[in-house]
């Protein structure tokens, strides 16, 4: 199942996106470049501020931790030097989580992380903040199965998938840039380097492995319905829809 995305639907924020995937629904908004407070001003770069707001309750250390991870990852793709002494403010509101989230016995913030990354990227695209590249992210879960082959990795599993595959030995979140560089790697659980390596390979495949060098996507791309599409192709479809929406006046009668 490809994630669903809705872009630029909020009126006050400069850019916004609602992202729905596997029972997670996150609303993201970006304001920027706006005036930065004196104490946060950087002379040669933009300040990036990330706010993660949980569905229920106020932010806790868990959200602060996610904010740090997001901040560092997003900073590396935002061209902060193009807009110095300004603020790019990213707010992510978790709207809903799958019911079974807590039951799978997996670190919940890792489950949330890829979705938060995608939401913030979409909101940044919607706000037209200058970026050096895009990013795609995926969660890989390695179930422990001592009997058979060491558990086939699950690629962005749903909460029910995780529940069924219980116990999970380790989970890994990877994020890749548009040019296939590893941007973020967070793991939890017990695993060997070989397992990590395999997980990383699988993740890369799901995110951005190209079949035969697609540089600029031409006209003949038909990935809307195809299952095999990787996340980067999904991103292109989302952007294509955004551009079509913006330029529909050209074809309107």
């Amino acid at each position, binding site marked *: 199942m490809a994630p669903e995305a809705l872009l630029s639907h909020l*009126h*006050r924020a400069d850019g916004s996106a609602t992202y729905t995937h596997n029972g997670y629904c996150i609303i993201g908004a970006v304001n920027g470049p706006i005036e930065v407070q004196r104490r946060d001003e950087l002379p040669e770069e933009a300040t990036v501020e990330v706010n993660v*707001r949980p569905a*229920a*309750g106020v932010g806790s250390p868990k959200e602060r931790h996610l904010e740090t991870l997001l901040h560092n990852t997003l900073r590396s793709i935002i061209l902060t030097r193009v807009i110095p002494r300004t603020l790019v403010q990213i*707010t992510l509101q978790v709207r809903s989580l799958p*019911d079974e989230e807590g039951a799978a016995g997996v670190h919940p913030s890792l489950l949330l992380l890829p979705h938060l990354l995608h939401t913030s990227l979409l909101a940044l695209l919607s706000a037209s903040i200058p970026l050096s590249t895009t990013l795609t992210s995926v969660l890989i879960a390695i179930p422990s199965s001592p009997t058979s082959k060491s558990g086939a990795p699950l690629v962005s599993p749903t909460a029910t998938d995780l529940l069924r595959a219980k116990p999970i030995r380790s989970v890994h979140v990877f994020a890749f840039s548009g040019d296939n560089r590893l941007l973020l790697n967070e793991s939890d659980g017990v695993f060997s380097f070989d397992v990590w390596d395999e997980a990383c390979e699988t993740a890369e495949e799901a995110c951005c492995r190209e079949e035969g060098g697609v540089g600029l996507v031409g006209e003949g791309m038909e990935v809307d319905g195809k299952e095999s599409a990787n996340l980067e192709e999904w991103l292109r479809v989302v952007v294509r829809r955004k551009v079509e929406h913006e330029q529909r006046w050209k074809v309107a009668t």
Partner: protein
Amino acid sequence: MPREAEISVNERAFIQQALQEQIRLDGRAFDAFRPLELTFGDEYGVADVQLGKTRVIARISVDVTTPLPERKFDGVFQIITEFSPMASPAFEVGRPTDAEVILSRILEKAIRRSNALDTESLCIIAGLKCFALRADVHIIDHDGGLIDASCIAVMAALQHFRRPDVLVEGEKATVLSVREREPIPLSILHQPLCVTFSYFEEVDIFLVDANFAEEQVRQGEVIVTMNRHGEVCQVAKYGGATVNPLALLNCTNIALQKVKEMSKFIQMKLDEDAKRRNVGGLLAELSAENDR
């Protein structure tokens, strides 16, 4: 400190001039709400309210705690409103603006103090265990009318919410999960709703459901909270303008009519949602039987 941009003098003058000619910017009547939209999610207790361009999401969650020592027989109920920069860059995290303080005070008075929720029903074992209910109000998009929209969202979410059932055996209480027993709705005593009137002194006009631009131009606001039986829960007035007491009476009359309409609308949406759920519920139960 970021501040909300002020409306330009041209816009201010124009809005006032238009009101003098009995025209609102969006062509609405003075006592008309913007189109109201209410949706529920897959989870219980999440209400998504759209009032024109304003959008508010309320979410109810529940926890088990010890009751407050001075209120042994009552559960805990909190309403939390925290603005985020999502609705406006002028909202800063951790530094409440006046609007935010007013919103949380009004919701407190309108819903909590008016005993809309029967907190005694949240008690599990007197003095030992009770449910702690919290309503989180998330402002997603801000185009005025936050108080009215938030109140609708919280009330709709409360009516939509189902809390887990508990099994009490002497001193021991077990919270039963959704799988074990069908969760039960909250006991709601009445449904207060807010109607905000924006007052314009020069033209002596009250506007219902002002949008953001109108809110910036108004000289005063009167917030009337009442339920559909016409019981006034609270009246608050902010802003410097003096308001004629007789006009207040007129406001309550309009408010009653609006509250009745909105209550009916919420009930209709709740019924629709219940119908949608019931189909799934029956099917789910049947399939569980078949599996065994």
